[in-house]
């Protein structure tokens, strides 16, 4: 559980734990991608192809943060994206979050999420969204402690039949009133408007 003391640990504690937090860079793919994949796919029944990781890391590597131990082993990772959403907002999306089981409950996930939020806020994001399984209380608590609210319940969102909550964090006033420019929302290019069915891969509990 990531419950106890989560989010309250001072940064010094984390440093004492010997962890350092690093932003991902494209040049580091060879060094880090295999362990990122390994860490994230641990909790998945079906793996994501390497292209899914590359899709995010190539375009939004600066929104990916890693927690490394003294020997540069990957302890935790968060992968996100940020782009205009068809609703008219500039929307951040937390796609994957994972922390090694032996290191859970130390506030690492909170720290990673906080870094991603800060990075997205600095890039002028209006809002940040994600989905999480309704039974994943640790994950819900983590995000809700940071300020996320549940906006929707999604029936049978996952292939295992479980429902999800969509969580949203507004970063700017007026986000709810934003409308797509030039009218129709569905005309915004070919890109999938959002990764609606993307889970955060990593469980944090």
């Amino acid at each position, binding site marked *: 559980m990531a419950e106890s003391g989560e989010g309250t640990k001072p940064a010094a504690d984390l440093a004492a734990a010997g962890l350092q937090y690093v932003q991902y860079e*494209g040049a580091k793919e060879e060094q880090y991608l295999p362990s990122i994949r390994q860490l994230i796919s641990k909790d998945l029944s079906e793996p994501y192809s390497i*292209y*899914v990781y590359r899709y995010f890391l190539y375009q939004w590597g600066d929104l990916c943060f890693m927690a490394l131990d003294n020997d540069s082993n990957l302890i935790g990772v968060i992968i996100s994206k940020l782009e205009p959403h068809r609703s008219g907002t500039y929307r951040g999306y937390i796609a994957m979050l994972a922390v090694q089981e032996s290191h859970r409950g130390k506030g690492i996930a909170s720290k990673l999420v906080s870094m991603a939020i800060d990075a997205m806020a600095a890039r002028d994001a209006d809002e940040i969204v994600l989905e999480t399984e309704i039974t994943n209380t640790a994950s819900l608590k983590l995000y809700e402690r940071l*300020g996320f609210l549940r906006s929707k*319940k999604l029936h049978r*969102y996952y*292939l295992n039949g479980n429902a999800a909550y969509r969580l949203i964090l507004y*970063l700017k006033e007026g986000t709810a009133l934003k409308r797509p420019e030039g009218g129709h929302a569905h005309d915004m290019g070919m890109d*999938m408007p959002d990764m609606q069915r*993307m889970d955060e891969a990593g469980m944090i509990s």
Partner: protein
Amino acid sequence: MADSFHRHSTASPQDADAVSSHDGAGPFHVNITNATPQTNLPLRQAFRQPICAPEPKIHDITEKFLKASNALEVGQLVKDDYFTLFESIGAIEILDPKMDSGFLKPGETLEDDYDTSRSLLPEEIIGIMDQLLCYEMAWHTGYPLSQTLFTSVYIDKLLWPEPKTLEQSQFFPNGESAHGPSAQSLLQVLRAYCLALIKGCDYVILKITSRDYFEEEDFCTQTYNRVLFVSTPMDVFLRELDAAVEVMEDTNFEIKDALRSAIISRLKFRQDFLRALDLDHPLEHMSSSWSPVLSGITTIKATHQLGQSVPGAFSTKMQRRLASTVPPRPIVEFDFKDALDLLEHICVDCEEATRFIDLPQDPLEYQSFLWTFASRLPAPLVYSRSYLSTLMFHPEILNTAVSLPLADVKTLVFPASLVLDPINWTLPPPRNPLLPKPPRLQLAMLIDEFVDRSGQPYLDLWVALSQNRCRLRRMLSHVITAWDLLQADASLVDTDLASAASELSITDQILEFSLSTWVYHKKLWMIEKVILLGFEQDIYLPDEFSGMHLFLSLIVTRRRELLTRIQTHHRTRHTQLLRERKLRLANEVAEAAPYLDSLAAEATGTAALSLALARFYMIAAYCGLLPVPKRPFSTESLRYELRMKPFLAVQPPEVPPFEDFKAHTQPYGPYTSPDPGFAADLRNERSELWAEVDGNVKAAKDAFTELKRLGAGAAKSQGVEKAWGKEVQNLLASCVALGVASAGVKDAVRKAGDAGDPKGLDIRAEIPDSGAKKRYAEGWIVVKIVKEA
């Protein structure tokens, strides 16, 4: 788990037209690669074959490729604009056993070598039949056929290669087993069972796809190019089953009696089930079609232990034979008991749905029925919901003389009104089109215009009511927007109605802004439901309880005010008609009163209960009984904006400004550090603070008691009288529970004494879980105050 990642946006054709297509965030409406929403994409994107492919031309690009790649660093990534997330999800890695469907581990075979002509014991026949039933039910809950029924080796044999006639659909060539006639007859029995099962699936898919549903969320219709005997009529399958029963009843056929009758009962169950699923089942026989299925379940349950499972008869490898690039996924395991419960659940729900046929012909009765059906626990599965929708849109039911919206309007705002006098529709227009039309004809035309305009939003509401519960909440928000536009149009029609009325000098006989009042009333009702569904689905966090209840009470109060205005008008009109000795009309107006009284009682109760809860949760939050997260990345006003988003564009009612909201929900300052006035008011049981809780609990109780007294008939819930009674009872129980909780807090405050810290009370608040029958009413969260041990 994150496997849903691989899902694609496969909107059913219906979705395109449904209100749901406005759902800004629903993944099902987003068509990614194709302009037509009708495409049925497989789970992973398969190569799309162009229908008339041009002759392929071969170009050697080796040189170009080498040259181009020389310009890149080793490991450097290139991404073109057309490589989307969707594509990345569809991508697979060859030789990865979890992604490459053709990848075999050393010694692994591509397919199983199960022999479908091998002889089976009667016990094994039962085992296979029951296992098939499990998979059939798993499919009903939303899993794909590929992970359920289509893992059956027997089903596969019957469906592939595609038989041209039913006779070709066999477990072994020519239907002759190499294992002798005895083996053959039992296999023929299993075959008949399987054929009927497959036909049943065909009916299920057709029923569901004929209505609004969400592919892969509600249900998976994908059949992987297998044709489920679409064009073979039901009788053929019933005859196959009859023949199988005859085989089993043949006394020359040696078999233990218990096994014989267990197999026969399964065959008969298939007949009954298939008949109930029949798409052309006559309306008048529908209600009686489910009880034979239900009694069949009892026998199957009692004889299940006679069966013997045949593990080899089902295999994940069968998925390789299906037209899908997805590697085999695990078979969905479903307990036999759960499967039977589910089957029973489907039968009971469908049987209940057939009561729609005999409802009083009144759109408000229909509405009550739809709402009650949608609120059933456990929630009706997609098949049962489609079953009800099919009845609801059945031409014999919908083609009534009076339009549905008009009947609804009449009940609320136009009882015995000249506006709806049939004579208005009989007046001829003036010969000269330049001359003004007679005012009564104008009334008729205006009403026609409005009825026409309101038809779609009206049906949108019904469609929303037939969705799964999560969708219902989201879809209602969109329906509300549509009704908001309708209200604007209605007020224009109202203005024209008023001028026609003034020409006739009957202004005082018509409720001012009748049509827009009706629209507004319905719109407010929907907003209330959206908020209550939010509570039901645990959308709101505990420290939002107070604010959301306050908002709810504000909305209901608006509706209550409308009702008062309508009631006052009707009363005046009644008196006036009596004075004019127009007794028949006076009577008609009087007949409208019980419905309005019932609405008013319900609104009064709802407003009071939500206000009481708003006040109670405010106290609880100040006392530290509810968790208040720190939320370093958010502010109250941003969260308020997010919460109010669905209603910001709607007007009326206007969302209150954040400052007002804050002043009302946190009158003593922040929850974490209330000013001293709070402690004083908390200790004073006669304070306004407590009066607002207890006074409103009492007011709510009185109103709901009145609602109960007026009865289901007045509430236009005659058709669901029992469920309605229970609902009202649950509202009353919620009031009582709140009274108890409030007393619990007061008691703890008293014990803590004047020096006690409001945050140090010796109690805690337990929030009852949703869907676990721990709440009296799912939408009304009343905490339990428990003494700390």
